């Protein structure tokens, strides 16, 4: 039981991060029907930006730790959001009328570019977040070890997810996003500026990815330019699992994937873990083609 609970805590931690990244995939997909393969790399850039801020600017300044972390996170988030808007302008917007395959390849190109840019800027070797930055506190609750970073990751992720959900459901901008997701032309007729909505999506999605990047950087310390690829793949899987285009679906999918992974590795075999994850994904799609929470989406007629 203790072992099971520890695995759940670990699974929730990883899953919360998958969910944060999956939100970016799902929002972009919902509005643009584009699989943004570069999204994982926004997450990676977030990790590196946070690292740079921590190491170069803030190491010397005598501010309290929580403030330092807040500033680093804010700068990384802002930077990644700007990057997201820029990428959308340059690499996706010109392609909106050129078919979806062109956009997918463009996204793959952006991903390739970002990875190699990161390699050139920060080097091909692994980098590590400074040890003083990450709070090391951990508790042992009845044999289950829970660290402060884990609680922070789960807490912040849940807060952001709920916030995003409320934003999309309750605000005017959120309504515009939902309307655009249903149909661009109708949304335009209703007086919604579709371009602004897409820009907004490319601020929110990458920003969430950026926050996730910093959080995971602090948690694991180790960062590398290839990390976006594997997390991106998992997060996208999570988005599909929950029902792509669906915001609560991304959360559920992310958490579920994290827990599945941890239980799979914890009880069965770490080497076969990914085979199980993808196997479950395929089975789920066979029996429930729209994911766990996905509604039946009308194929455009």
């Amino acid at each position: 039981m203790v072992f099971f609970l520890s695995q759940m805590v670990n699974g929730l931690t990883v899953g919360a991060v998958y969910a944060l990244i999956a939100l970016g995939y799902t929002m972009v997909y919902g509005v643009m029907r584009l699989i943004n393969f570069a999204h994982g790399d926004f997450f990676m850039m977030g990790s590196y930006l946070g690292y740079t801020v921590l190491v170069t600017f803030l190491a010397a300044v005598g501010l309290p730790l929580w403030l330092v972390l807040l500033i680093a996170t804010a700068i990384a988030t802002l930077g990644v959001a700007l990057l997201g808007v820029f990428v959308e302008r340059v690499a996706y917007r010109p392609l909106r009328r050129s078919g979806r395959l062109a956009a997918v390849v463009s996204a793959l190109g952006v991903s390739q570019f970002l990875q190699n840019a990161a390699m050139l800027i920060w080097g091909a070797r692994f980098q590590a977040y400074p040890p003083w930055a990450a709070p090391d506190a951990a508790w042992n609750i009845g044999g289950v070890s829970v660290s402060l970073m884990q609680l922070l990751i789960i807490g912040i992720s849940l807060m952001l997810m709920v916030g995003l959900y409320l934003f999309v459901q309750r605000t005017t901008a959120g309504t515009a996003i939902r309307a655009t997701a249903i149909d661009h032309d109708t949304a335009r007729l209703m007086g919604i500026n579709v371009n602004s909505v897409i820009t907004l999506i490319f601020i929110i999605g990458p920003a969430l990815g950026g926050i996730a990047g910093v959080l995971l950087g602090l948690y694991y310390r180790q960062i590398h330019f290839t990390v976006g690829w594997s997390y991106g793949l998992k997060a996208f899987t999570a988005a599909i699992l929950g029902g792509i285009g669906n915001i609560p679906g991304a959360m559920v999918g992310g958490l579920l994937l994290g827990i599945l992974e941890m239980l799979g590795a914890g009880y069965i075999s770490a080497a076969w873990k990914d085979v199980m994850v993808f196997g479950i994904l395929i089975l789920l799609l066979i029996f429930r083609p729209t994911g766990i929470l996905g509604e039946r989406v009308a194929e455009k007629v």
Partner: protein
Amino acid sequence: MKTERSRMSRMSVSANSAFLMVLAAFLIVFPFFVSDYWIDVCVFWGINVLLGLSLNIIVGEVGLFNMGHTAFYAVGAYTAAILSQRFGINMWVLMLLSGVAAAIAGNVLTAPIMHLRGDYLLMVTVGLNEIIRITLINNPFGLTGGPNGLIVLDQFRVFGRVIQSPIDFYVLVWGCVALLLFALFRLQRSRIGRAWNYVREDAVAAESTGINTRWAKSLAFMIGAGIAGATGTIYATKMMVISPDSFTFAASVSLFAIVILGGTGSIPGVILASGAMMVLPELMRDFAQYRMLFFGLAMVLMMIFRPQGLWPSTRWSTRVKGGDAE
């Protein structure tokens, strides 16, 4: 406007034939002037062309998103390696068998989700690629040799001559390309090829016009996977050693990019793009570090300024002779 367009498409068809003739001439003359190394480069180019064309059936002709194509390539290569190692079956038979194995794998694994939206299929094929790669690494029942892979000792034989030297492989691979082109040409001009294009254009309309879209999609997937599997046999005998390192998701992605960058559905496009993928990195050697950066940038720019690809698809469209003049 109307007549102009139709004339243009006719001209491009002749450009296609011109391309193939120039290519054939080049390929015949080429080996007489270069070292074995460049012949070998062309062997791998040819292998990539085979793979690209097989993926093009799925992505280009039918419009199905398949981003895990190397999975089928791997199934073929490993089927050949395992059967040759254990039973010493003739390589030509193995080529057929591994093609069939890959086709079955392609069909069994994708049939249940064939009717889903394109993006789900994409995700499933990606998952499939990972499942197969990890399974190969984990060495189930001691079959696949784990991360070390398998040694392939047997080779193709033609009238007692062992296909071994670069020029032998050159002839074998490009001979296969020629055969495949011929087969594709036949298919494209038949009811099967047309059905594929109808499905790509509008699956609902195709179904309502009496086309079994599921059959059309599955057939394309089986043929595409089968060809990739058969190509896997050639790859295995060429490399003599195969390991999971050759069948990664990244390899699938670059194959996918070849098809789109070349011009979805375009045969000259696939040949040009896979050639460029082989030669460009060689030419950009001086920029070693920046190479992949430029490569990513080029993909984006290409899609923005030439979304239809290097050599946009021009089909050999079905025309009727005679009739009255326009």
